[in-house]
């Protein structure tokens, strides 16, 4: 584990970060407005509930089918990519992935890498790794570019700069981009960014991208995007490096259309994205353009841990649409940065523990009311609330031999466990329960007025003077 990963404890300070946001009315309003906008955009894309449910079932089946054959499909993918002239690399950890990418860069004496949007590159913190060896890594997705200029991380997997207002972006451009006057006209701001980025595409040594679907049967890398920066990043520079998690694989090209349709409609409420790239190899001898080298880095980073467990494997069905974030009342209140992980929101809570271990993420799963809004909109039916409960169990249970997850028991507390055991002892015994509840009602005047966190914004809970069972007895 790298030193950076060791220092990265999202659980530490989560509550404090969340508190900062919920106490900021401006941010609260801003997140609420942005999420409402995305929720409404999505729903206009699914006018028929029946079609939506049919498509979700199909999406779930496709993802489960492909995960079921994952080891064989990875072999098939490597064979077909290699045949197509794409070099395949395997990375178990972020450090390994960075070393592979930097190795390719150094072989080409690269100075500038231009990046299409890639959350996996965020996951491995590639920009930092590049910076450390003097390679400039420049984000070319508008949202990512804004976040990079601000020295921040994305706060949303689809809309990285959703936490920023246009005024903040105007100020940022004025301060950070040479020769730019202040303007908060959105069209003008986009043109400013576009002009800066265009020049970079032409001189970049390396283009880096993510992958939405890797098709095993044909050895094709599919990339979904809206700004054309993905196409430029993967075609203009002489070398293209794609990076993705090992789970993003489908066996057949036929599997792509339903997932693509679910992805764009769930993510941004678009019937189809502006660009859909299918990359099947480097420039051929008789072709005039395209990169002369194409690489794919396949990253594990904890995914095989999730894969090994039947229930946790469902985490890997995700197609990274972000709908769970948009519909999450917790994400809506605190935004993405408060989570402290690359992937925020409901999907972040269930995937991050595999990447970072439960030691660093033990409280994340508690930050959910289990309202189920995420599971309800998930285009591939990931049972997120069930997985959150499972992660709570993995975290709070007493450490034991051969755990399923790294950091199992990290949240174990002898006292809390004893409280639940005592609770079970009372509630499994009608006699003890009757005695306890009778006492609580009979002596309800002893109920404390300060009930800790509950009474920070609520009046105290007080048992009624008579229980329902007493009222029923009185009646008969």
């Amino acid at each position: 584990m790298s030193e950076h990963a060791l220092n990265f404890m999202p659980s530490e300070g989560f509550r404090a970060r969340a508190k900062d946001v919920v106490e900021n009315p401006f941010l609260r309003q801003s997140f609420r407005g942005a999420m409402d906008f995305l929720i409404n955009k999505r729903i206009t894309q699914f006018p028929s509930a029946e079609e939506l449910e049919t498509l979700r079932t199909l999406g779930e089946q496709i993802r489960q089918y492909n995960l079921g054959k994952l080891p064989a499909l990875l072999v098939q993918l490597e064979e077909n990519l290699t045949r197509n002239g794409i070099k395949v690399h395997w990375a178990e950890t972020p450090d390994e992935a960075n070393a592979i990418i930097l190795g390719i860069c150094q072989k080409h004496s690269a100075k500038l890498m231009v990046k299409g949007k890639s959350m996996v590159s965020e996951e491995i913190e590639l920009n930092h790794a590049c910076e450390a060896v003097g390679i400039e890594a420049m984000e070319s997705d508008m949202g990512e570019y804004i976040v990079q200029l601000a020295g921040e991380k994305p706060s949303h997997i689809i809309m990285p700069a959703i936490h920023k207002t246009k005024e903040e972006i105007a100020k940022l451009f004025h301060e950070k981009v040479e020769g730019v006057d202040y303007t908060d006209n959105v069209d003008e701001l986009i043109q400013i960014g576009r002009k800066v980025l265009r020049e970079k595409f032409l001189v970049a040594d390396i283009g880096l991208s993510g992958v939405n679907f890797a098709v095993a049967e044909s050895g094709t890398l599919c990339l979904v995007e809206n700004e054309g920066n993905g196409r430029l990043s993967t075609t203009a520079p002489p070398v293209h490096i794609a990076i993705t998690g090992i789970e993003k694989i489908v066996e057949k090209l036929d599997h792509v259309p339903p997932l693509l349709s679910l992805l764009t409609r769930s993510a941004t409420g678009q019937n189809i994205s502006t660009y859909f790239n299918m990359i099947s190899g480097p420039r051929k001898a008789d072709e005039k353009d395209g990169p002369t080298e194409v690489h794919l880095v396949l990253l594990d980073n904890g995914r095989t841990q999730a894969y090994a467990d039947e229930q946790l494997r469902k985490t890997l069905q995700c197609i990274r649409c972000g709908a769970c974030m948009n519909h999450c009342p917790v994400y809506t209140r605190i935004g993405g940065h408060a989570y402290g992980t690359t992937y925020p929101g409901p999907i972040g809570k269930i995937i991050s523990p595999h990447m970072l271990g439960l030691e660093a993420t033990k409280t994340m799963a508690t930050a959910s009311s289990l309202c189920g809004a995420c599971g309800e909109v998930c285009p591939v039916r990931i049972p997120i609330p069930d997985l959150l409960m499972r992660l709570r169990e993995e975290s709070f249970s007493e450490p034991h031999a051969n755990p399923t997850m790294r950091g199992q028991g990290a949240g174990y507390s002898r006292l809390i466990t004893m409280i639940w055991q005592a609770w079970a002892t009372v509630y499994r015994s009608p006699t003890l329960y009757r005695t306890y509840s009778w006492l609580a009602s009979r002596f309800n005047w002893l109920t404390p007025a300060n009930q800790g966190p509950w009474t920070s914004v609520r009046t105290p809970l007080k048992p009624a003077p008579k229980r329902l069972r007493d009222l029923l007895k009185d009646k008969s």
Partner: protein
Amino acid sequence: MQIQGKAGQRPTDVYFFATCVIDQFFPGAGMDAITLLEREGIRVHFPQEQTCCGQPAFTSGFPDEARKVAAHQLTLFPENWPVVVPSGSCGGMMKHHYPTLFAADPARKAQAEALSSRIYEFTDFLVNVLGWQPEDKGSNCTVVLHTSCSARREMGVHLTGRQLLGGLNKVTVAQQDHESECCGFGGTFSIKQPEISGAMVEDKVKSLKATGAERVVSADCGCLMNILGHAAWKDEQEGRKTPSLPGEHIASFLLRRTAK
């Protein structure tokens, strides 16, 4: 009162699983639900041995403790009668989670599955089993309905409460913004993440109050504890003597509106 039972489905006897929250904190809601059922000619059986469905431990990551408590409830309903639960949340636990909770225990799993098929959330039972159509005896009033996330997403009974209130011709049901959003209760979530839970209930109470409704009704007392607790706290903070958002279980409201 017009009663339209669905042919062959109208039971003569039901079990009532009150939930620990109603037994201890909202006994009136339980009484009103039972009275309403009895008024429809149904014999209501209250197993005295009942305690809690086990959900608090289950959702907190302590399934073993939940299983112990749930196993006790499995034994309480021997007759093949419907089990009416005045909560979508506890009903959801018994209907949808009991079978998986006992997945590794074949005997109990079979019991859990048999029980699961007999679990009815209260408003669902009134509408879809009894075909109950309330006759409004009250005067004009406006209420707002809060439906729990479990009722909505686990039990799929988010329409029945609205349907019952819609049958009261002098009651206007106000529409709050972000109706389907969670109130922020979430059991131990409200204690473990009080800042986020507090922000959620604050927004919920604001949206309920913004409708101008006289009261909030809900078929889940967990949500009511949270919503009414925050509304009352806000009243105290702002020096109001009368509650700005009174509320009650939908059973109490329905019983009062239809009392002869």
